[in-house]
């Protein structure tokens, strides 16, 4: 076990975390960046070689590598202890290859990003059904899709790049089913006229699969097949039809990864961490930046990261151009959220036998009569398995309106030895401890 001190700890090396680390190190702060992945970049800038990335991503990753920020990859933050005195924060991380890092810091930036939202529908757990992240990962590993018939279903701009990439990889995209109605998508697109870069990017993606039908107000109601996906049932407001396909790729938007923030007691609103002008959370010394404060895309994540990094470095005022950029992108994010709000029909696709919790194999009927997520967990073990409700939690909220339960230690699955060594070596010597255990 190693114990070190830092001026700033950044959790998450996606766009927000990278920008935050760059800004804080440029202000001469000792920065430690922690990330689970073997490479920096997060989900959106995931890469094997930097050369495959876009210019913006390359620039930021290069900037980070030129700083003296200490980037620890392949580590999972399993515990965060906020001491009784302001600025007494201890971060406990487990190295995937063994070993425990304990880092004491007066400032923590939570840049934990977002995860995919899964909407349970009959057949969603069949092999051949994947989320956007799963498909992107396969693409980046160089998997071939030649001749594969692909249906893409979901909502929002994120389903467009995956359609383009799959087309490039040889797949035949049968349809891109956008659940949002035509008017909503059109109004959103028109509103982007004030943001020409974004519009241009969307247009490029659109061109990439010009021969592919982009069906708005359309959604997949079920997937079928015996032990492998064979086809999907699709519906719009007027009619329903079936399509044979080999791969169904779903993308129903993102959910902020607020577990760490909730664990340390940060205030959240609408499922995102609440922050002030300086990206500070309600807990002294703890900042948040990027998707964890609300889904807004790469540009907003970078702007928030820059502001948070500068704030932890004691910047007296916020760079006005950054603040303007953040504001403009937040306006777009809010419009996007409204335009691509999930339609009511998606909440009732799951049938009695549709699996809701994959870890524990719990179907809808087993939990539908309960009052909240805690009952679903205790009585039927929904959310009790390896992922601890990270996948099914948002689904329970969508289907039944149940709020997520208390976040308990460890924040990520951790070896028992990690929990005991960190505690016994004095990681917990801080007097107060705000994380309620029950």
């Amino acid at each position, binding site marked *: 076990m190693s114990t070190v001190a830092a001026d700033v700890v950044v959790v998450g090396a996606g766009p927000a975390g990278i920008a935050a680390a760059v800004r804080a190190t440029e202000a001469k702060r000792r920065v430690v960046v922690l990330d689970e992945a073997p490479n920096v970049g997060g989900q959106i800038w995931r890469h094997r070689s930097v050369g495959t990335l876009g210019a913006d991503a390359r620039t930021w990753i290069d900037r980070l590598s030129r700083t003296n920020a200490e980037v620890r990859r392949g580590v999972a933050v399993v515990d965060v202890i906020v001491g009784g005195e302001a600025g007494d924060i201890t971060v406990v991380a487990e190295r995937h290859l063994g070993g425990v890092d304990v880092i004491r810091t007066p400032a923590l930036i939570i840049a934990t990003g977002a995860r995919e939202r899964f909407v349970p529908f009959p057949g969603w757990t069949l092999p051949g059904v994947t989320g956007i992240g799963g498909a992107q990962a396969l693409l980046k590993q160089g998997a071939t899709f030649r001749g594969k018939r692909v249906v893409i279903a979901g909502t929002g701009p994120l389903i467009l790049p995956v359609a383009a990439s799959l087309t490039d990889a040889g797949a035949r995209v049968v349809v891109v089913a956008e659940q949002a109605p035509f008017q909503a998508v059109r109004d959103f697109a028109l509103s982007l006229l004030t943001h020409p870069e974004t519009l241009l990017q969307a247009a490029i993606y659109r061109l990439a699969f010009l021969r592919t039908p982009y069906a708005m107000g359309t959604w997949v109601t079920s997937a079928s097949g015996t032990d492998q996906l064979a086809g999907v049932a699709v519906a719009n407001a007027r009619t329903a039809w079936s399509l044979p396909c080999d791969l169904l790729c779903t993308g129903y938007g993102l959910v902020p990864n607020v577990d760490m923030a909730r664990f340390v007691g940060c205030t959240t609103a609408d499922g995102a961490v609440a922050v002030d002008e300086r990206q500070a959370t309600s807990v002294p010394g703890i900042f948040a930046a990027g998707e964890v404060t609300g889904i807004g895309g790469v540009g907003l994540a970078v702007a928030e990261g820059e502001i948070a990094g500068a704030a932890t470095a004691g910047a007296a005022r916020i760079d006005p151009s950054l603040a303007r950029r953040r504001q403009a992108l937040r306006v777009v994010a809010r419009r996007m959220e409204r335009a691509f709000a999930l339609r009511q029909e998606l909440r009732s696709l799951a049938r009695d036998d549709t699996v809701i919790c994959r870890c524990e194999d719990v179907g809808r009927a087993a939990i539908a009569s309960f009052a909240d997520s*805690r*009952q679903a967990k205790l009585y039927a073990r929904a959310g009790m398995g390896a992922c601890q409700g990270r996948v099914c939690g948002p689904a329970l909220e969508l289907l039944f309106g149940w709020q997520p339960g208390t976040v308990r230690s460890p924040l990520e*699955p951790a070896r028992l030895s990690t*929990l*005991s060594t960190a505690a016994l070596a004095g990681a917990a010597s801080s007097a107060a401890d705000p*994380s309620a255990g*029950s």
Partner: protein
Amino acid sequence: MSARRADAIIVGAGIVGAACAVALARDGLRVLVIDAGGAALGTTAAGMGHVVVMDDSPEQLALTRYSQSLWRAQDDAVRAASELDWCGTVWVAEDEAQLEALPAKQQLYRDHGLETEVLDETTLIEAEPHLRRGLPGGLLVPSDAVIYQPAATIALLALARTMGAEVLQRMPVEEIVPCGVRCGADTLRADVIVNAAGAAAASLTPQLPVIPRKGHLVITERYPGFCRHQVAELGYLASAHVMTSESVAFNVQPRSTGQVMVGSSRELVGWDASMNRRVLGRMIARACEFMPALADLVAVRTWTGFRPATPDKLPLIGRWPDVPGLWIAAGHEGLGITTSLGTATLLADLVASREPAIDAAPFAPDRAVTAGVH
């Protein structure tokens, strides 16, 4: 609820309240169970879930033995839903003194009709291969079980409903009055009121000698077959017996899911539910001393809970003389899952003025209790 009047109102839909609902409904009483939250969500949910015979005192041995026989005889549907796994317990001796005490313990169990097996250094490792080499021996008690207690509670309540019982959840009882309970503006009346409110029992009947004794637990990912029995150190009894401010003891359970549950800790810190990482660390370190391979198992969740403890380690079962109509079924500390059925049967016998199967006097709620006698 329906307009009809209940004969018995049980406050608390934990496993003790649920068992009492079955026992009283079986006697023909119209039973109403009221819980401030939901069934099994309080004291019951926080525990390990075992059906074990323990011999801290002759009275504890009598009640746990009796209760275990009732679990064996339990309705098939309840047993199946409870995921009862008769995996047995291996009590591990840490030193020669504990080893030498085993024949007497074995004889005590035999006197109560339970066959056990004294294990030596070799047969101990055969029984539980992940135990550290060099431990002198232990006692295998094959008749113990582990159980999924939230499901058991739900199943007991379902059984009670088939006998006419009603269950009201999310209805906090603010006060117990003579032959009634007050919920907000309403007072519900019945001849029999049972305080089965778990760790919260003393908030409704303030003179009850029930105090919260905090514990930590950890559960791992799935490692089917990692341990075959519930495994506990013999020192566990000492840890549980003495009301020290803080103690830890090695105790692991194989769960039906293949997960391993690791305990245990005991603290007297009032109602502070926060994770005490130092105690958690000590508890895990203690477990790893006995079972070194535990260190590399991956934990998915930790939590804390409160045992409703009494000074003499015995539950409070019977009439509460100060309040007309009030009966108590509380103070089970860490054994409420096991002793729920014995408690309920005993209570129903007392309510019906029948001779109980075991002596009820040691459990009388108004008995004079003395702390830490040993």
